[in-house]
């Protein structure tokens, strides 16, 4: 790990000022930042510790409806907050399907949004990577790429965004609140992330010194609470990143779908909202056939970026199954094995 300066500002304004200098990085839970500093993939000259900033650790119900979550709320605390889990059960399920209990206790909302891709070449300074070193090339193109993107990728970068939490957030139109040297701004989380194009080093719209202060979930998001699920395919039952995941939510009236929401994880450099699939479901019956058609539409533009064509069919099946689970209704509590295909519909494991 490189040597760095360490500062612990007392206010958001001080933090923004301290982080506006080149080479500075915010330190929140540290679970992604320290990991990448240990390999030498990241070498910030200054860490701006935001763990003691006042006011960023609140979960609030807004008077106009919806909820606001401070950037320093720990992932475990958010998943466990009863009002939050009741209103946005798929978000709670996604949070609990991520990482381990220890990591969720440390990881923050802001850090989860800003975590870097798990592309192994980004973490390894001995490899070339356009995200780490713009213009250097991309070792993943001809390397280990079976977990890489099938949507929205470019020849400059085929990495995926690894977060589970962000997938239902994008499905539910979450808004990110940002404070920076130029003042405040906010935008839908979906637009916060950038696709790689020719400039994969720009992963989000965040400019130097800008701090995520919180997230808002709009009131309409809670209208899906009776039928919303997160389903995550991974290479072991727990403590693994998603190969492919989906957040699926429905409103059903008189046997017909009113509104549908769908976002996929593990398929692109940002959580992938599939509006064409949502549109197809409007007015349809909640059947396996309708959901398969929606899945087909969601993956219509998908193409393999390497040894990963299997992810396209896998994603279709995950989407279909996530909608079937959503249609069956949100379980009363988050299943014992969150977001797992090894949980039955009632939330009880089918393992012996």
């Amino acid at each position, binding site marked *: 790990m490189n040597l760095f300066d*360490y500062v612990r500002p007392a206010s958001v304004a001080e933090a923004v000022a301290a982080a506006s200098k080149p080479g500075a990085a915010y330190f929140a*839970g540290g679970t992604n930042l*320290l990991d990448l500093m240990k390999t030498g993939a990241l070498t910030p000259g200054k*860490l701006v510790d935001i763990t003691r900033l006042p006011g960023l650790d609140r979960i609030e119900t807004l008077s106009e409806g919806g909820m606001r979550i401070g950037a320093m709320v720990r992932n475990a605390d958010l998943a466990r907050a009863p009002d939050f889990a009741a209103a946005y059960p798929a978000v709670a399920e996604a949070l609990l399907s991520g990482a*381990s209990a220890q990591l969720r*206790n440390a990881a923050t909302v802001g850090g989860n949004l800003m975590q870097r891709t798990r592309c192994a070449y980004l973490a390894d300074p001995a490899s070339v990577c356009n995200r780490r070193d713009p213009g250097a090339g991309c070792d993943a193109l001809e390397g280990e790429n079976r977990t890489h993107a099938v949507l929205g990728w470019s020849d400059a970068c085929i990495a995926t965004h690894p977060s589970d939490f962000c997938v239902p957030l994008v499905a539910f139109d979450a808004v990110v609140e940002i404070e920076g040297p130029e003042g405040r701004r906010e935008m839908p989380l979906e637009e916060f992330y950038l696709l790689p194009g020719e400039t994969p080093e720009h992963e989000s719209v965040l400019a130097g010194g800008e701090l995520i202060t919180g997230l808002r979930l709009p009131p309409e998001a809670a209208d899906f609470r009776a039928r919303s699920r997160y389903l995550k395919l991974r290479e072991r039952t*727990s403590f693994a990143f998603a190969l492919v995941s989906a957040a699926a939510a429905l409103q059903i009236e008189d046997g017909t779908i009113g509104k549908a929401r769908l976002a996929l994880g593990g398929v692109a450099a940002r959580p992938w909202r599939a509006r064409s699939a949502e549109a197809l479901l409007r007015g349809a019956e909640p059947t396996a056939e309708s959901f398969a058609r929606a899945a087909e539409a969601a993956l219509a533009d998908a193409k393999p970026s390497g040894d990963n064509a299997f992810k396209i069919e896998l994603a279709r099946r995950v989407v279909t199954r996530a909608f079937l689970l959503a249609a069956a209704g949100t379980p009363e509590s988050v299943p014992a094995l969150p977001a797992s295909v090894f949980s039955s519909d009632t939330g009880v494991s089918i*393992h012996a």
Partner: protein
Amino acid sequence: MSLSVTLTINGDRKDVVLEDPRVTLLDLLRERLHLTGTKKGCDRGQCGACTVLVDGRRINACLALAASLDGAEVMTIEGLAVGGRLATVQSAFIEHDGFQCGFCTPGQIMSAVGLILEGDAGDDPDRVREGMSGNLCRCGAHAGIIEAVLDAQKRVAGEEGKAA
């Protein structure tokens, strides 16, 4: 850039001067305070061998910066037994053969203590397995580990019941 931090470790207040801010909580415990019960397996958050409680919550000490934890209360495996009397989780690990080589054991036990404090898993074996998935065991002692945690959970719940 030297930094002084104060931590309460297993009930004892420790004032430590760090030569530079790179020191993780794990390295501070092992290298500076010689509390080597907490193990370093992967040093990357992937194995759970370094699990300790910070302010009552289980975390991976390898991905925590000591400087950032100034003022915190840390509990390690060394702090669990009181007056030579093993804690419930420790006894349960022995009774259920919850280990073989023992390398992962301090992390497993601290994680189990954290899990029981969280109170979400109850007596559901799936929830306990899921809740313990951040702790790998290279020897494959998981079956005994899960039995030990379930038993410890039951005993702790029983004691609370009696107290109430």
